[in-house]
């Protein structure tokens, strides 16, 4: 072990922290999900909510609590009698007649001192005309039950430029709801995937191979033997196998069973758990370490074309370009090695030694990877990118409303996910019927006719349509407190994923049925 290493340990473990500060304690339960990086992204975000409805304030509550930087409620309405009854962020009867935005901002602000809130009582129409740049200055824009015409204008504005903020469109009536996130492109490094990266047992790097071959299993005492990490056992067993099989891996089912038996035959005592672990993990020997197909697919992303890479491309695509080059150039044609070793039966010394081998190699590969970077990228980001290289995600979106204009896609969706599609269409029909006059109370017949005109006269509506239409006709203006709260959680969750660029947001229209209590996604 070099002195360099022990010094690292020294500095890593002697800097004793004191008890965390108030802010860390307050956010402890969420920092465990998105860490300081996610938190700082939230804290620098600015969220625009169009309307101060119960759904809107529920969404905001779940964003103010975890600590976004700023929110604005844009709403020119005065608190009505019915608002005062279904919105927790109004002072009941006392708020009636006052500005809905101002009342809600005041009460939402009380949830978290570090969040800045503003009420804006202008109309959206006037801003769209005179100050569209005000809208595009936000990090993300959310609109609940917005008038159809205004919504079209708003979504068109925000789609104009890929740099403009994403738009979340939320619609609800009674027990039914849906929402959609309009965005051009969303890149994710920390997807928090549950898939773990390869340990490269099938393609051991030289130091690992040498280490595995240098150990003399038969000269160990029973304790040592019972604590050889499975990674070492497998590398060793696979080398032996290849020697006696002309260099090839266990291929057929029979060969693989034979390999596993061979691993177990290495035991000197029946209860050696490390050899049992090796048997369970033996699949790693014949699961070839290569670039996962999802990542290979990203390598042909148009953003990587030379023209696109010039100047103002995001660091993500520079990292992706470097990754592509790395996998083409390196002799294993794999992603850079992970430095994280899972826990396994082993004594401390063997485990720490193995961990160090992985760390050292990972660092070497990371340096090679870095040499392919054309622009300087922050070291922490490079680290995170390499660590998550097996689970990177690039999402490309469509403008709001394109699904409803695509009769073929709607027809397909009606046959594969009839219930969800019918709910979505019924909400679309309601929105169209109320365009320009939100006080219209449409009949079941008019909703059905409108849906039919959306999907085209030759598409037959499934039986599920009646359920959706009936519920919408029953309660076209109803914003149920529970539906508002449910949507408040759902939408806030997705907004947090968008802002932090961690975890994977929903694609397409997320449809919610609170009668059967289920959700589904269509039109992705």
């Amino acid at each position, binding site marked *: 072990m070099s002195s360099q290493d022990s010094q690292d340990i020294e500095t890593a473990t002697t800097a004793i922290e004191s008890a965390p500060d108030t802010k860390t304690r307050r956010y402890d339960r969420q920092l465990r999900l998105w860490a300081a990086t996610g938190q700082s992204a939230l804290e620098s975000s600015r969220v625009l909510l169009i309307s101060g409805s119960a759904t809107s304030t529920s969404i905001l509550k779940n964003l103010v609590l975890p600590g976004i930087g700023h929110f604005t409620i844009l709403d020119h309405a005065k608190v009505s009698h019915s608002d005062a009854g279904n919105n927790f962020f109004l002072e009941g009867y006392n708020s009636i007649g006052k500005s809905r935005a101002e009342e809600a901002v005041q009460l939402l602000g009380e949830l978290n001192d570090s969040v800045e809130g503003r009420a804006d009582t202008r109309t959206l129409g006037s801003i769209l005309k005179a100050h569209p740049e005000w809208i595009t200055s936000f990090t993300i824009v959310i609109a609940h039950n917005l008038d159809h015409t205004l919504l079209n204008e708003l979504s068109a504005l925000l789609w104009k430029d890929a740099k403009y903020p994403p738009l979340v469109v939320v619609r609800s009536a009674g027990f039914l709801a849906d929402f959609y996130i309009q965005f051009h492109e969303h890149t994710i490094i920390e997807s928090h995937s549950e898939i773990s990266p390869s340990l490269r047992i099938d393609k051991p790097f030289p130091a690992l191979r040498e280490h595995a071959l240098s150990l003399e299993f038969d000269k160990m*005492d*029973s*304790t040592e033997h*019972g*604590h050889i990490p499975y990674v070492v056992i497998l590398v060793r067993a696979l080398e032996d196998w290849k020697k006696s099989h002309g260099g090839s891996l266990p291929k057929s089912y029979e060969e693989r069973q034979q390999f596993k038996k061979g691993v177990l035959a290495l035991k000197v*005592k029946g*209860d050696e758990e490390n050899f049992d672990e090796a048997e369970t993990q033996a699949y790693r020997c014949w699961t070839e370490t290569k670039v996962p197909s999802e990542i290979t697919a990203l390598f042909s992303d148009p953003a990587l074309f030379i023209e696109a890479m010039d100047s103002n491309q995001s660091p993500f695509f520079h990292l992706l370009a470097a990754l592509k080059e790395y996998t083409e150039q390196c002799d294993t044609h794999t992603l850079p090695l992970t430095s994280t070793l899972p826990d396994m039966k082993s004594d401390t010394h063997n485990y720490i030694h193995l961990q160090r081998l992985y760390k050292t190699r990972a660092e070497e590969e990371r340096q090679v990877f870095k040499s392919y970077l054309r622009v300087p990228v922050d070291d922490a980001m490079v680290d995170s990118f390499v660590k998550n290289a097996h689970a990177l995600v690039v999402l490309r979106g469509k403008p709001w409303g394109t699904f409803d204009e695509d009769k073929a896609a709607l027809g397909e969706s009606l046959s594969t996910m009839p219930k969800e599609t019918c709910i979505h269409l019924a909400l679309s029909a309601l929105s169209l019927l109320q365009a320009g006059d939100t006080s219209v109370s449409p009949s079941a017949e008019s909703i059905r006719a409108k849906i039919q005109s959306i999907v085209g006269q030759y598409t037959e509506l499934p039986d599920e349509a009646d359920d959706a239409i009936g519920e919408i006709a029953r309660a076209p203006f109803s914003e149920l407190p529970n539906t508002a709260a449910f949507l408040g959680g759902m939408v806030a969750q997705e907004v947090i994923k968008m802002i932090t660029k961690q975890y994977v947001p929903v694609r397409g229209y997320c449809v919610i049925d609170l009668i059967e209590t289920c959700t589904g996604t269509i039109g992705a």
Partner: protein
Amino acid sequence: MIKIWSMKKNEDAATKKRPKTSAAQIRVQKDLTELDLPPTMKTNFPDPTDLLNFTLTITPDEGMYNGGAFTFSFTINTNYPHEPPKVKCMQTIYHPNVDLEGNVCLNILREDWKPVLNLNSVMVGLQYLFLEPNADDPLNKEAAEELRKNREQFLYNVKTSMRGGNIKGVTYHKVLV
């Protein structure tokens, strides 16, 4: 309110009363009354109406711990069998898998506990520790080292400890019967 009563699947079920005893309590009764212990193991309930706290004495009739009587306390909480019983050795003994505080290293008492296991499996597991002490995954490292490197010395130490003797500054409980 919805009329749940009418949904009861058959009239019969509706006329049957439900037991009032807690699930943990019944499960402990079941575990205890179906114990099938060899003569080398004996339970002792200081209060026979309290089934959740008792001791188990193991008197191995073979192996290196032959001649000793080893007592373990069992504490079962109301979350049984979702949680395993808490078991501790009540004496200071010289054993590779039991430390001087009485902690016992037995997989089914911690990481491998499953609700399908029962008190009988735990007791059998404990007895096995005295027949086959495991030197490779020890709790008392010195004892384990001795067992691995110098079996004769280990056996001698076991005898000394069982007599209530002193090994390397530690005085052990006299457990000879």
